[in-house]
């Protein structure tokens, strides 16, 4: 079976600065994989390479067995790879409805857009009440729910979720993870970059630990918790300076 997403020996960076050094990662259809690691080890860079936001400097990125290294971001999206980026991930100047419409029009086609909109508003009544509000005026949690509504309706083959819980209230984090679980149950694969280790491992099948731009460990999620406790945090406390220097 071909992997849904495969990174083969990928290196990437920003200008003269390199963040990833020969990383290989695979995600099978329907599988949930967690990327764990301290600040600045290249988790976000990995997520960006996986969705085509950043072209790798070497190595290949395969989606459904097709080499997509260096192609435009929109091709990744059309191939079924969705990205929920770190921080604000909605169009702040568009209304809630326009945010969803923009996305559904592309993924579902003109005819199915109204039905998809209706379904999104049914699943998230909070959004229905605010459908004409400018998305930039929503709270951080509400913006996150808007982003989740988008991907849940679209049911991408693979969702790359980058620090979804960052800066959110615990109750909202729970709701985000309920949505992710629902997505997984409907058949989407997940690649989750997370610092909330507990949440991520409860959801995921496999985990990958990154350390300073390389994969330091990968294995089943249930073994990961222990690895994280012994490996990452010990290592991290001794290498604070390196981690800070590699911020990106």
């Amino acid at each position, binding site marked *: 079976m071909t992997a849904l997403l495969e990174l083969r020996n990928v290196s990437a960076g*920003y*200008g*003269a*600065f390199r963040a990833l050094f020969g990383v290989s990662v695979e995600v099978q259809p329907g599988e949930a994989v967690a990327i764990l690691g301290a600040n600045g080890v290249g988790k976000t860079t990995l997520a*960006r390479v996986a*969705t*085509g*936001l*950043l072209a790798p400097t070497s190595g290949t990125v395969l989606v459904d067995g097709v080499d997509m290294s260096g192609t*435009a*971001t*929109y091709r990744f*999206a*059309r191939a079924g790879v*969705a*990205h929920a*980026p770190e*921080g*604000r*991930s909605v*169009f*702040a*100047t*568009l209304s809630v409805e*326009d945010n969803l*419409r*923009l*996305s559904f*029009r*592309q*993924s579902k086609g*003109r005819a199915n857009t109204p039905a998809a909109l209706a379904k999104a508003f049914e699943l998230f009544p909070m959004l229905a009440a605010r459908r004409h509000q400018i998305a*930039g005026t929503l709270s951080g949690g509400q913006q996150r729910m808007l982003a989740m509504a988008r991907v849940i309706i679209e049911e991408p083959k693979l969702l790359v979720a980058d620090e979804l819980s960052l800066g959110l209230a615990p109750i909202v984090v729970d709701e985000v993870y309920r949505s992710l679980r629902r997505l997984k149950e409907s058949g989407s694969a997940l690649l989750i970059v997370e610092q909330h280790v507990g949440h991520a491992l409860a959801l995921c099948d496999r985990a990958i630990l990154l350390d300073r731009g390389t994969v330091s460990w990968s294995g089943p999620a249930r073994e990961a918790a222990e690895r994280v406790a012994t490996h990452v945090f010990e290592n991290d406390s001794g290498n604070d300076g390196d981690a800070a220097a590699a*911020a*990106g």
Partner: protein
Amino acid sequence: MTLATGVGADFLRALLQGTPPGTVYALVALGFVLTYKTSGVFNLAFGAQAYVSAAMYYKAHTEWGWSIIPALVLSVFVLAPAIGLTLERLVFRYLRTGTSVAKLVVTIGISLALPNIFELITNFKGVVGQTPAGIVPNGSGVFYDPFGVYPFSRDELTTIGVAVIAMLCLAALFRFTAIGLQMRAVVESPRMTELNGIRSDRVSAVSWALSSTFAGLAGVLIAPRFNTLAAPDFFNLVVVAIAAAILGRLVSLPRALAGGLGLGMVIALLGTFLPRWVDSNPWLRPFQENLTPAVPFVVLFGVLVLWPAIRRSREVSDPLSGVDPPISSLALATRSARSHLIGRVFTVGVLGTVATIVYFRADASWMFLVTQAVIMATIYLSVTMITGLAGQISLCQGTFAAIGGFGVYQLATLHGMSVLVAAPIAAVIAAAVGAVLSLPVLRLGGIWTAVATLAFAFFFDAVAIKFSWVGGGNTSLMQGTRVPRPVLGPWDFADDRAFLVLAVVVFIIVSIVVVQIRGGTIGRTLRAIRGSEVAAQSIGISPARARVVAFAVSAAIAALGGALLSIHQKNVNYGSNFSPVSSLFWLVLVVSLGARTIEGAALAGAAFSIFDPLILRGTIFGWILRSPKRVPGFFPISPKWRLILFGLGTLQFARHPEGAVEFWRGRTSRWLAARQQSAPPAPDEPTESIGVDGAVTS
């Protein structure tokens, strides 16, 4: 329908009379809003785009004798979108993640280059003393008078109809179509749009083709309003239209339409009623003569300063800008002490040789040009001060220079003071004006500072120079604004050679002042503010105070240079030296050569005055080949190339805000360092926030 005579009828007549010019403002304002909304660019080149289509239409219809429809298709529906697509592909695609200030500077460069490129290619000379034809047959000869008080020409009615239809179509585009929504999304974040599976390159190409077509349509429709066909008219019209567009917060199409119409009507009303009030209140007379042309600029300035919500409305950054690589560090920071010293010695050597040759060998015309170059370099140090150090774009440096020129004229010619005393006093006056102006203006920040200073420059141009205590009033009309050359002890500066020495001395003194300020507390404060205004404030720096000082000093330098220029030419020559458009060209020159260094300003001065005679006319090749006869046959090259080259020189501003000189120096010093195998070149340090906007480096 007829109405009783009286105030009511006059009011109605004024409203109707204001409708045609109001529609023109509205049309341009709509186009401006369209561009801003679909591409995120505050497009000062809109006027240039409109001009090119109007000129193409004139050429095809009037000169080649094409009939209306093919001429219209060629100029508006072929040429205009082609220009839009070219601009998008070659320029703005690479600027999408740049700051709005960088984009603004680039559009200024394009607004200077584009008309000249067109005129060069098509050999179009511009039209003077003839009203260009409109897009309906006999448009200026047939009139309709629906209310019996004011007859509309057929051209005017066409423009009104097109403006209303265009507004409705564009509103429908944004409200009901997918592409309208996609265009707005791409403006906010091209990358996030791509994550939705949408090709943002293609969307922004459509945006530019559309807005450029609209610019072309507006250009063809408004050309009949002028009795000339020249690019500056279109630029002035854009500044008026910005006032209308800003009433709609730059995003609302109906409000831009209403703003344009309202502006036209208010001007017409003032033109109707002010003369009556003046009969009973004579003190209103100067206002009557000057207020009407100034209304748009007063509105623009007032709205910007008094309505803070406007400038906050669209300051949304791209959340995915972190994907861009960090900008490279300045050459100054990476250069070794040794190459720094070598560069210094080399520069001083070359300058000394040139100065010696010019002093002893140059004839009168070269002496004039070199002196002018030195004086312009002094003026450009004011741009170094405000743009290079404070990071603000000021488009009214010409106005400050004019204050210097007129100050000397007033004090020396009309009040008998020595010009050597008058020039510093004029500089102090300009500094005071600059300080007062900076209080409301610099608070705005970014493109709004640029637009407010542009409004001030046009206000000065339309109103202030007509006052007798500024421009000399009737005296200057009769005698011109003559300024004498000074005599100081044994030196008579009527001698051009002595004056050159004076100009060089002033330039050196001002350079030292700028270098001192750059290295001193104010300079560091300004760098801190450019790095992060919030962080600077949190350690107790007052951004307002540092910027006021920078702006006042910059105004004083410009005024000193302007005074020198007037003394040198023995006349203020406001129109050719200090008009608002000249400020734009100055900024373009300095920014493309280097806004942060003394060398950049000096080179910009040389480029202003010597580039054309030395290089474009091929003189230097005559010198090198030791005979003017051996100059290759394709010289002289058209002087338009100066505007084209330096206008396009702004394109690199987004990537290299330090300017061409610093960029190449950085290259060479890194190359030298690599060759010498001594200290390896410092790598580009990753900054904490990767991909911070291009203009904020230090």
